[in-house]
């Protein structure tokens, strides 16, 4: 703020100067301004009045009325009057004049008003601006200091910066703390409450719970497996159908068609027996189809194919046959019906059908006729129904009917349906077998459809029967043929086991008997372990018997040795002694020998070692530098040595190194040389924040390789310091990212507006601030 002060003082100075300058201006003014005299004069008057206010150093301008010799510099003359000018004379008119009071007032007003400061010069203004801006920015930036520090110390930085994902909480926790607030939410909650949906507990709705209770897990699994099977089969059939559709072989199709026709006839036959009305309808259909066929020109030998065949027929036997076949078919079709029925070529089934066809045709016309075989049949059917009352029989034919009706269009589809039906049946079966109570209503429903007049008890009995039957059949279906042999196998096995159990106590007495038993085929498995075990024992026995004498021998040996060696050292007791030693007859002699050997063996060894060590120590010692020049300053020559004094003087002693590691270890020579190659791998320059090597060593003490760490630890230790996502823009950090309000951002914008002002000095100061 000293600069501001300086500016103020400067201002004051300039004001003074201004005041002092005034009279000079005045003196100059008359010579300068002559252009507009009136205004000038007024102005002069004013100035006069002003100047007269200040008494002491203003002189009144004398009017030159007459010529005088001497005109003073300030145009004051005291000549001629002979009397001194008195101040009061000068001031007299001032007081009286009224106009001057106004001026005085004005002047006072002017004085009371502050003078407008002069604008500072450019550099200073800029400096001040810079300072202010710096203070502001440093303040704004200091908010970021903790973040910068945090980022510097962070183990890992991940860019681009993201919002931290909330820690994974189980949905239960989330929901339990949640309440409906908005009307929409409340509405939704109300709905949920009404429907008994779980609101806070998201696990299961009551319906779901009930369903869970209703079906056991196993059942559900089975059902699922069934469904899977059905789906697989369906897809299989679909694939098959598709494949068959693609087949282009004409022969195949011919055969297929024939087969179909045959089958249709057969089915029709069946249907006629079972359900004549349906059969009639069917018949009509067939007839219609035949009519259509007849109307068409399909088999007239006039088609494209027929024409081409006709050309070929001359040469090709097959083609000829094919043509003939077609002609024959044409004939067959165009023949009148009565004639057709008589034809010999037809098959048996067709024969029957042939009998039926005319009746069926007639039937429509004479519905009410009494002696009609069809009517007879109808009657019989009614009786059958009444008789049978079999609930099983009824649905089946219905299904057949449906399938037959569809048969001609798409066979595979029908097959699927039958399959699905089968599954349905099976499921129901299982349900029945599992829960009898459940089974009853199900079975009840079926008969109800067919006839409602039946008695309940009867039904029940029937249902039970049914259950049994179906169970058996279902089982066989399910486990196919495999189960059968299993059951068969089980049977005999059981049969075998039973006698075995009975027989055992009697028989398993002696080994021989057991062996006999083993010979019998069926018992082999059971009995084998026993004899083998027995065998083991018997085998072991000789072993152990053989082992006993061995051990005894060993023990005897040991005892002998013990006796021999106890005198020497008790600790050798249990040692087994090498055989060579045993072979020595005279132990004591050996001992003596050894004693002597041991006593004298090491002598030279120790001496050698000590010598070696001394040499090593000498070699490793730093050597003194001898700078003596023999013959310099004294006599030199053979046999003459430089004096001790001189030698002492010119001997530069090197400082003694650190003590050797093996100084106090007489039996060890440790090499003091540095392993230079290994040193090349060592750190030799301390990295930045460390001031002592021990500090740094502590930070690199833990190995980071996967050999020494667990996998997790290894991954953590080798984590990269900065992680960036490839292909993503790394935006600069924003205030929102770190939880500041946007106000700090506006602060930052100041910086961005005049970034040049952040000079080096400012940065330094900023740093200082951040440190503080």
């Amino acid at each position, binding site marked *: 703020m000293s600069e501001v002060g300086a500016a103020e003082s400067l201002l004051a100075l300039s004001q003074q100067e201004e005041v002092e300058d005034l009279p000079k201006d005045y003196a100059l003014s008359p010579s300068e301004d002559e252009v507009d005299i009136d205004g000038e004069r007024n102005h002069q008057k004013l100035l006069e009045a002003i100047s007269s206010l200040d008494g002491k150093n203003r002189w009144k301008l004398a009017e030159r009325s007459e010529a005088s010799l001497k005109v003073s510099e300030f145009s004051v003359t005291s000549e001629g009057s002979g009397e001194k000018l008195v101040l009061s004379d000068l001031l007299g008119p001032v007081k009286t004049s009224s106009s001057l009071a106004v001026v005085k007032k004005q002047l006072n007003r002017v004085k009371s008003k502050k003078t407008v400061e002069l604008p500072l010069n450019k550099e200073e203004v800029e400096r001040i601006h810079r300072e202010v801006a710096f203070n502001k920015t440093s303040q704004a930036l200091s908010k970021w200091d903790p973040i910068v520090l945090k980022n510097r110390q962070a183990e890992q930085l991940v860019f681009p910066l993201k919002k931290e994902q909330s820690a994974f909480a189980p949905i239960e926790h989330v929901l339990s703390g949640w309440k409906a607030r908005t009307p929409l939410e409340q509405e939704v909650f109300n709905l949920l409450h009404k429907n008994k949906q779980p609101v806070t507990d998201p696990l299961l709705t009551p319906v779901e719970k009930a369903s869970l209770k209703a079906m056991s897990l196993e059942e559900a699994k089975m059902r699922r497996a069934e469904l899977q099977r059905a789906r697989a089969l369906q897809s299989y059939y679909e694939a098959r159908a598709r494949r068959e559709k693609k087949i282009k072989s004409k022969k195949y199709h011919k055969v297929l068609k024939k087969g179909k026709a045959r089958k249709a006839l057969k089915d029709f036959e069946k249907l006629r027996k079972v359900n004549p009305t349906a059969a009639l309808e069917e018949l009509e259909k067939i007839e219609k189809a035949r009519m259509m066929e007849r109307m068409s020109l399909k088999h007239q030998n006039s088609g494209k194919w027929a024409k081409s065949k006709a050309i070929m027929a001359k040469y090709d036997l097959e083609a000829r046959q094919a043509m003939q076949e077609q002609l024959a078919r044409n004939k067959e079709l165009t023949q009148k019906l009565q004639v057709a029925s008589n034809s010999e070529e037809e098959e048996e089934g067709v024969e029957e059908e042939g009998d039926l066809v005319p009746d069926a045709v007639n039937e429509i016309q004479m519905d009410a006729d009494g002696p009609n075989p069809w009517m007879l049949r109808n009657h019989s059917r009614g009786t059958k129904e009444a008789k049978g009352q079999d609930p099983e029989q009824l649905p089946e034919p219905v299904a057949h009917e449906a399938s037959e009706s569809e048969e001609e269009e798409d066979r595979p589809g029908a097959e699927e349906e039958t399959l699905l039906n089968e599954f349905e049946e099976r499921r129901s079966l299982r349900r029945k077998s599992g829960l009898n109570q459940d089974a009853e209503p199900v079975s009840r429903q079926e008969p109800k459809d067919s006839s409602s007049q039946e008695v309940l008890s009867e039904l029940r009995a029937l249902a039970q029967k049914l259950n049994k039957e179906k169970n058996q059949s279902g089982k066989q279906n399910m486990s196919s043929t495999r189960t059968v042999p299993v059951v068969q196998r089980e049977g005999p096995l059981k049969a075998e086991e039973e006698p075995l159990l009975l027989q055992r106590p009697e028989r398993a007495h002696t080994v021989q008997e057991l062996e006999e038993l083993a010979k019998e085929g069926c018992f082999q498995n059971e009995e084998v372990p026993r004899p083998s075990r027995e065998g083991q024992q018997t085998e072991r026995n000789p072993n152990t018997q053989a082992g006993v004498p061995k051990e005894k021998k060993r023990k005897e040996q040991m005892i002998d040795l013990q006796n021999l060696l106890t005198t020497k050292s008790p600790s050798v007791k*249990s*040692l087994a002694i090498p055989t060579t030693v045993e072979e020595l007859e005279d132990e004591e002699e050996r001992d003596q020998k050894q004693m002597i050997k*041991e006593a004298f063996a090491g002598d030279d060894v120790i001496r050698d070692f000590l010598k070696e060590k001394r040499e090593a120590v000498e070699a490793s010692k730093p050597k003194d530098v001898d700078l003596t020049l023999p013959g310099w300053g004294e006599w030199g020559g053979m046999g003459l040595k430089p004096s001790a*004094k001189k030698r002492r003087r010119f001997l530069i002693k090197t400082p003694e190194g650190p003590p050797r590691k093996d100084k106090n270890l007489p039996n060890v020579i440790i*090499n003091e040389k540095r392993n230079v190659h290994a040193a090349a791998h*060592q750190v030799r320059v301390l990295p930045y*924040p460390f001031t002592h090597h021990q500090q740094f060593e502590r*930070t690199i003490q833990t190995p980071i390789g996967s*050999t020494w760490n667990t996998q997790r630890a290894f991954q*953590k230790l080798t984590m990269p310091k900065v992680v960036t996502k490839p292909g993503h823009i790394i935006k600069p950090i924003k205030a929102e990212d770190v939880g500041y309000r946007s106000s700090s951002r506006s602060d930052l914008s100041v910086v961005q507006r005049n970034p040049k002002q952040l000079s080096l000095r400012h940065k330094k100061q900023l740093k200082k601030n951040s440190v503080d």
Partner: protein
Amino acid sequence: METAPKPSKDVPPKKNRLKAKRKKPRRYWDEETLTAAGASPGLPRNKKRNRELRPQRPKNTNIAKKSRVSRKPQLPKKPREGRNLEPQRSVSGAQDPFPGPAPVPVEAARKFRRIDKSKKLPHSKSKTRSRLEVAEAEEEEISIKAARSELLLAEEPGFLEGEDGEDTAKICQADIVEAVDIASAAKHFDLNLRQFGPYRLNYSPTGRHLAFGGHRGHVAALDWVTKRLMCEINVMEAVRDIRFLHSEALLAVAQNRWLHIYDNQGIELHCIRRCDRVTRLEFLPFHFLLATASETGFLTYLDVSVGKIVAALNARAGRLDVMTKNPYNAVIHLGHSNGTVSLWSPAMKEPLAKILCHRGGVRAVAVDSTGTYMATSGLDHQLKIFDLRGMFQPLSARTLPQGAGHLAFSQRGLLAAGMGDVVNIWAGQGKASPPSLEQPYLTHRLSGHVHGLQFCPFEDVLGVGHSGGITSMLVPGAAEPNFDGLESNPYRSQKQRQEWEVKALLEKVPAELICLDPRALAEVDVISLEQEKKERIERLGYDPEAKAPFQPKPKQKGRSSTASLVKRKRKVMDKEHRDKVRQSLEQQPQKQEKAKLPRARPSALDRFVR
């Protein structure tokens, strides 16, 4: 089957000699039932139970013993009241019975700590301090993770325990075989190979394969667990030593003249003539170095991954036939005839250390897997155990009736010694303790003189090669029960082996990093600048930073005469000299002041002093 008592046998009941061979995995319900049974907190109760169980040990029932052993006393069951007792209840009513992170025993975690916090650090700035704190927190977290993962080590070491007063050394192999399960019993076998002389043998690093070479040229390799023979050849030459390289696919055989390398089908791949008259072989798996000691006194390091000889060091101690490796720091130990054991690294021309161990020559050396203990036996019939951690002092020693010719350490620190035709095995108290030489743990007599000894890794088996063939004997508690599937997996497939091979090659450690203290590599090289310079000069043979002597420029017009050249040279020299003198003078006053003080006035008679 092993538990069934057999009273009907007419063998005198051998009391207990029970060896449960490690097979009891710990189940979580074991712990559960324990805690459920006892309301009191776990640890003291556990101990109490232990004490109770020890005297009234039921005879011939392994189950009780197993359970006793299976419970780790050092794994205290922490009462869980430290953490929040009431876990958050969910709507479904499900409740976490063990809320919070699983507890980790402090003891187990301490084992994995690497930073020694007791050491005081010099005062550090805040920034440095934060870095240090981060490092320490990281280390702690990692150690806890490692301790937690120890739970996955399901297997436990086997053991052999005598009844009161019974000496386990009296239990012979037949007894053990009888007591253990079939699978373990099958691991004891003898190969009678009397024809081709004493055998040396070697197990592959995974412990699955066994290679042996007879002195008369018989070389064979087999999967010894399934007894499937991989190859069998006769090299028609004396075989001194045999060793698997990094995997079972390669075999190095030290033959009479040269070193040969075969593959697992017996096909000769290499004949290395630079390694001649090799007596002993050692393989350093992490460095891919094959160390060979030869009759000529050379220790040669062969890098098998690139086929280069890394270093050939002259030991200057005559014939070398005693060699072993230190598995901890890959230093090679050589035993010499003058009773010393020297420690070698390929980076140094001289031994790293020399230890005088015996008064006579050294016959055998072995180093345990942690690199802490070294066992030596000498011609003076002594067996000594040395501490290798800095001091190289003998811990224990004993005289054997006939000195041990072969020594071997097992993974868990059992020491086997072959003396003549007898193998003695000593065991220590715990895993980290040296074997106590008082009482042997097991003894076994062989049909021939011992020529080679090795414990099988990850199997409680000691392989002994002798003049009568090969014997694989059971030593309960010898091996590490849990293997590292990524490091050496006995059950690995060919594909896995190949992948492991690639990984191992990628992680190959340079040969020059072998030194006595491998952790020293993690220290800052604080050598002074001067020393460094000196070393550099020594290494290069000249000073690369030395100033070239002044060479005056040739001048014309007769000013380049010899005299003027010399003059100019002299001028520069003098100037340099003056600078030096000035510099020294500036330093001198302080020195002189120091020097003058103690000195008395020189007397006139001083001149006569000679």
